[in-house]
């Protein structure tokens, strides 16, 4: 690892140094970093770990702060109080440090976010947390059982065929567990739903976001999937665009935030 490599990474700002990294939201209000519309400590931590793991071997981590441990585990990181790596949250500056020893910081300029929009989004998330399903919903049990596929592209294999999302049986055979898919693909179709066309789970935030965009993607490994575009993705999708993915908040219900992979246009 070379010292102080600072890059844009999955819509965030990251700075690597020999001891680890700092990753921050790229959004700021009056110079202070704030979380983006579908980001929080958990999404920053996973993004940071996914960058750091390219440089260092990270099996387990120690958490200091408000991070969803299920989401980290779904992405392949175990939680251990004795772990070599520590994730520290700076809630006041939408910043995460992942290091072996000292917590460190890094000053970087972000992109100014409209403060009213930020307040409205925060309020929407707060209300959404208390929402109760009145019809179709994904239970916590279903969400947990699919978490590794939803957040880490955990896949299956049957003969030469890669399978994602997971299937119980194909014909009379059960597919075998396989390594995660590479997080790259190509847009084959897309739509942008108006606030009125979006599922009720998104009804509070869709009007603030001017609708939500969904893409149909053929993954480089073969399977297809549908994904939301990250809320702060500035590019408009087009058929043929290459995409990569990042874990972001999907929606909240019954007191639980659901996380999943969202598409970022390359």
């Amino acid at each position: 690892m070379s010292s102080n490599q600072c890059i844009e990474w999955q819509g965030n700002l990251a700075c690597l140094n020999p001891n680890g990294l700092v990753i921050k939201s790229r959004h700021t209000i009056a110079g202070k970093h704030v979380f983006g519309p579908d980001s929080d400590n958990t999404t920053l931590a996973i993004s940071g770990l996914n960058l750091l793991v390219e440089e260092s071997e990270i099996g387990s981590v120690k958490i200091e702060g408000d991070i969803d441990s299920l989401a980290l585990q779904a992405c392949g990181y175990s939680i251990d109080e004795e772990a070599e790596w520590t994730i520290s949250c700076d809630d006041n500056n939408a910043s995460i440090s992942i290091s072996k020893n000292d917590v460190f910081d890094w000053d970087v300029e972000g992109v100014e976010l409209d403060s009213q929009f930020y307040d409205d989004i925060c309020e929407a998330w707060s209300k959404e947390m208390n929402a109760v399903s009145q019809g179709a919903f994904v239970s916590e049990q279903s969400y947990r059982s699919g978490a590794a596929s939803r957040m880490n592209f955990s896949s299956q294999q049957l003969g030469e065929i890669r399978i994602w999302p997971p299937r119980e049986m194909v014909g009379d055979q059960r597919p075998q567990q396989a390594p995660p898919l590479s997080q790259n693909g190509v847009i084959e179709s897309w739509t942008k739903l108006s606030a009125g066309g979006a599922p009720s789970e998104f009804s509070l935030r869709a009007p603030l976001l001017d609708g939500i965009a969904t893409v149909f993607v053929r993954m480089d490994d073969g399977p297809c999937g549908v994904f939301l575009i990250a809320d702060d993705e500035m590019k408009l999708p087009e058929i043929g665009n290459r995409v990569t993915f990042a874990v972001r908040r999907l929606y909240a219900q019954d007191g639980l935030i659901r996380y999943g992979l969202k598409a970022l246009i390359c």
Partner: protein
Amino acid sequence: MVDVAVVGAGQTKFGNHPLGLKGMWAESAENAFATIDGDFDPSMVDEAFIGSIAFGGGQIGNTAALLTEHTGMDNIPVRRVENACASSGFAFRDAWMAIKSGQADIVVAGGIEKMNDLSPERKRFWLGVSGDTEWERLAGLTFPGTYALMARRHFHEFGSEHDDLVNISVKNHMHGLENEYAHLRKDVSFEKAQNGFMVADPLTLYDCCPTSDGASTVILAADHIAKSLSEDPIWVLGSGAGSDNLALHDRPSITQLVATQRAAASAYNQAGISAKDIDLAEVHDCFTIAELMATEDLGFASRGEGGKFAREGRGLRNQGDVTINASGGLKSKGHPLGATGTGQVVEVFKQLRGEVESNRQVNDASIGLTHNVGGSGATCAVHIFGRDLI
């Protein structure tokens, strides 16, 4: 093997209906009973199949038992049939099979949905319950979104355009204008449909069917009874059904509905006819792109030519190759989910008997088809009807 005929068919007006489930069902059943020419009493019915999603959760359990007890069909075997928007298409198929098997002589197939008595928030939760909840819904998709993905891909692969969908919308509104049972009886201009409010890009409000209340009832009878009940029975020439992967991402292509192709092949084969023999077709246009793809999947147009078919007006009443959605289709007539499939049968029954309003009658119609799709194409039922047995 026994032949099966439709001897009676009726429905409520689709739209915002003032009555609840029991009232709507009774109105629909009475309208169906009234079309039977011979001596008929509802106690003569051997079995009943009623399609419904039970939208809103008002009466999910034992729906059919509740409804039939209010229409004089007491103490017979009944059940609710659920296959999303294709619920009553499959209820009709089940009724047909009950007679074909020799287990019943007179069977009722129907459908019902009450959609407009919910708060907007609760309604939004129920819309899209028939898609892939875990993977598609969490990616922000309900049916406007899934069909929008299909539409954009169809445009990309085949050069079809949104204006082709506009043509379908305008046609179906024109067809439904004089239908007294239709939900949206509006003359919609090309320019208006072209510039509608965007719901799911590229689909606008004028590409989407409304959410409707409604019920429909069809009475089927075995051949040895049919002629005593009806002077003009309409024969079921073919029944086909198919299914496919629920989620779009599990299908090899998102520009065709394989379930429709399978159902149509089976129905055509059974009837011994092909698409060119059909005079009128009630197709499942929950979104205009669904009709465009259906014209291809049912064989009225070649693969990729659905846009051209619409552009050339080949589905216009009494002007094209085949009249598509003489009733106005789901777009204009309305889409009370569970009631739509047998509602299509009601239209074909009346058209083939020459009993619709004179200004929307399909001329010389002798063979009709119904096409009822569940959700984004996971299930499909296709039926073919004739004035005469072939």
